[in-house]
């Protein structure tokens, strides 16, 4: 790899992926902090967390392909496997947690109802 400050197309693609992932994660965190009840918070968590992790990990995989060698390709495939794993388990975790909350009997926040806090 050439020494110096070169930022080629691969670096730009990976920086764009990582940057958008961080922005989506910021959205998810804002949702987690601001939404009124457990169910709406997990909407933000389940979606934002899955996509931001995917994007950032993809960015790492793309960056790692910057100098092509056999071992770097293997490492990128491993990072891609993390992506596949996250894509399957992210919604599953969301669903499991949601179901546990529903089974515990927490009421969900309604718009017109008076906004009492759910039981701790």
């Amino acid at each position, binding site marked *: *790899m050439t*020494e*110096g*400050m*070169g*930022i080629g197309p691969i*670096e730009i693609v990976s*920086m764009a992926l*990582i*940057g958008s992932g*961080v922005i989506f*994660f*910021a959205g*998810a*965190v804002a949702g*987690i*902090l601001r939404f009124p009840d*457990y169910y709406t*918070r*997990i909407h933000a*968590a389940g979606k934002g*967390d899955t996509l931001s*992790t995917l994007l*950032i*990990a993809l960015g*790492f995989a793309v*960056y*790692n392909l910057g100098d092509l060698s056999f*071992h*770097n390709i*293997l*490492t990128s495939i*491993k*990072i891609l*496997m*993390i992506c596949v*794993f*996250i894509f399957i*388990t*992210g919604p*599953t*975790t969301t669903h*499991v*947690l949601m*179901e*546990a*909350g*529903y*089974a*515990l*009997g*927490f*009421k969900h926040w309604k718009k017109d109802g008076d906004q009492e*806090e*759910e*039981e*701790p």
Partner: protein
Amino acid sequence: MENAYLETFFIGVGCTLFLLMFLVMYRIAKGPLVIDRIMGANIVGTKTMLLLVLFGLIYERVDMFVDLALTYALLNFIGSVAVAKYFRRQVAQRDATTDGTPLESGGSHD
């Protein structure tokens, strides 16, 4: 890492991720429900996995750190599911001892 600009960028990404994780920590500390805390811990776990890969990239040992990250992702998923299952089973036992109504028929009992 040879490229100074990219190293700065990666360190910036790491710091931003850490800051956002810290904000999620508020949700873990505050609750109010126990499942809120599990959800926050799950998110912190996923992002820790990303930070591991990031460390690997910065120190040029991705091949080693990626294995750790993969294991971390697996354990994180299993941990969240196990805790959620635990609460789920507690509810099932509570239902079985109190009124005997099956849990699946609505779940709105309080």
